[in-house]
């Protein structure tokens, strides 16, 4: 089959990593254009060297170019604010679909291993956040065994892997991830924490998931988690349990007080993950890039398989 042409908006860490992935690995997507706003951006220069169409004039710049007509899928790796603007342009073009890698979340949240069909028949899907892509499968893995009341995630990433967009979107990260823990993960209440660690050599992305659920068979929860880890590994090979799953009882006479939920007790499950990147753009410590761009590419490929 012929590949479908795509554009990437945002020539930072995420956009550049996605470009390299599509170029090297995709049987369905063909990289066509890279859109930035900074003439001196490394990502734009790299795209140019690889022979792709580039513009430093934002999406407006690409719309003026002849290549625009053939582009069917647009990945947005800018910021939440910029995404609103970009979607206003794309929304008017009925033949184009947007995959949103910002926390703007105009369209439905999509986590490939949990709700891959969320992208069906919509023209804007949202990839939540890197931390959400890494952790929400785990919340869902517990929730498919027993009711999760509360899901909390801690994402620690290397400072070097957090570009300007990530740094200017910290609040959006926590808010969007928390909401997606509820909507996609199935928790009544979600909470997300993010930490940047500047250590040298850079630390590999770590994600910790805590759930508070109804009591259930711990072996069944463990098995569900291991199975889900394998499913994520299908597109992010560096995704691993760093430790065996830990369980603690929160007894009824010593409940925890959770904002918006009140006093809760039950089973606390702790899942310690490590996400090693494929080393496409930034080195392998940047698992946060890898999991986000891999999920986005997979989503783009699914759209092609279904619609083209």
């Amino acid at each position, binding site marked *: 089959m012929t590949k479908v042409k795509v554009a990437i908006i945002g020539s930072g860490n995420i956009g550049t990593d996605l470009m390299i992935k599509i170029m090297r690995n995709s049987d369905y997507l063909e990289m066509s254009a890279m859109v930035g706003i900074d003439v001196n951006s490394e990502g734009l220069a790299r795209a140019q060297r690889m022979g792709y169409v580039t513009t430093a004039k934002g999406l407006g710049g690409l719309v003026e170019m002849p290549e625009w007509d053939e582009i069917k899928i647009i990945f947005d790796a800018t910021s939440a604010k910029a995404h609103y603007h970009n979607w206003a342009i794309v929304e008017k073009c009925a033949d184009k679909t947007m995959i949103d890698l910002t926390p703007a979340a105009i369209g439905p949240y999509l986590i490939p291993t949990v709700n891959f069909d969320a992208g069906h028949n919509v023209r804007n899907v949202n990839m939540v956040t890197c931390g959400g892509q890494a952790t929400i499968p785990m919340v869902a893995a517990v929730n498919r065994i027993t009711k999760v009341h509360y899901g909390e995630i801690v994402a620690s990433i290397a*400072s070097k892997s957090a570009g300007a967009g990530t740094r200017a979107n910290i609040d959006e990260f926590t808010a969007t991830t928390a909401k997606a823990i509820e909507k996609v993960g199935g928790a009544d209440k979600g909470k997300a924490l993010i930490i940047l660690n500047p250590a040298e050599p850079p630390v590999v992305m770590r994600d910790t998931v805590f759930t508070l659920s109804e009591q259930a068979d711990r072996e069944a929860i463990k098995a569900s988690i291991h199975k889900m880890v394998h499913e994520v590994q299908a597109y992010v090979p560096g995704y691993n349990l760093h*430790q065996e799953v830990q369980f603690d009882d929160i007894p009824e006479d010593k409940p925890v007080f959770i904002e918006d939920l009140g006093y809760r007790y039950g089973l606390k499950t702790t899942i310690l993950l490590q996400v090693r990147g494929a080393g496409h753009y930034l080195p392998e410590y940047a698992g946060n890039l890898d999991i986000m761009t891999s999920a986005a590419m997979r989503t783009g490929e699914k759209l092609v398989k279904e619609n083209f």
Partner: protein
Amino acid sequence: MKHNLYIQDVSLRDGMHPIQHQYTRDQIKDIAIGLDKAKVDAIEISHGDGLCGGSFNYGFGAHTDWEWLEGIAELLNHAKLTTLLIPGIGTIEDLKRARDLGVESVRVATHSTEADISAQHIEAAREMGMDVSGFLMMAHMNDPKGLAEQAKLMESYGAHCVYVTDSAGALLMNEVRDRIKAFKDILRAETEIGIHCHHNLSFGVANTIVAMEEGANRLDASLAGMGAGAGNCPLEVLIAVLNKMKAEHNADLFQLMDMADDVIRPLQQRPVQVDRETLSLGYSGVYSSFLLHSERAAKKYGLDTRTILNELGRRKMVGGQEDMIIDVALDLVNSK
């Protein structure tokens, strides 16, 4: 430009750590009233890890921040009601909610190398008309020049004041001196400089005074040192020293002494003191709030707390990474 001394109490924020964020609303109210009567200039109230810190990772509080803050501002005659916000944990929405409850001053805290994630929050606080400070945590993990450059960023976002925050209680006296000097060299004269110490190497008061001598005017302290690790600079001791130095301030020594001994010390389930565990925090350069979490992990997995703390320091874990305590404990168990 000479700024007046400004004493900020942190017993009801940093002091949350030793009691696992379990102050009752009445305790908060009574202590705040006492501090206000004793003419402390500012009183900080929130979960130990700032607004919305309540979590499995940091410990759930006995109340929400909103419950602790509600009704306090109206009771204060002298002191400003303040709070703490750590981007990545709390958000601008949370800050608005605190402001609506009468909080008029906020400190926006980041790791000592990550000031740029505070831009949105400092700007938002300014737009809300709040007094706002930047709070550069784990100050020992950046050199004086590098730390001062981070302070400059916070100033550029609109911070009225920037703090050298020795979260690990790891800085020696000359190291505090060099950092404050570097701030003084690069910050505008109207920008105030603050100091926040932990007592893990017994330098809580000494480092605060050194900072003051170099030009810091916002000094953090807490009653009986009520704070993470071996505690903060003990407020009553600081005031006694300032009196002896004939430094101008507003606080009343005897009232604070009484509160420290009669109200705060009886609350301390785990003594807030320099001992082998808290000394290890300062010695290994570990975030003081890790203390109780590490002690719990040591008990659960049959390890020495110090071994866990040393390993956390070796791995250069930063504030907020409490989840890595379990990870380190499990690695230590597995390598046995």
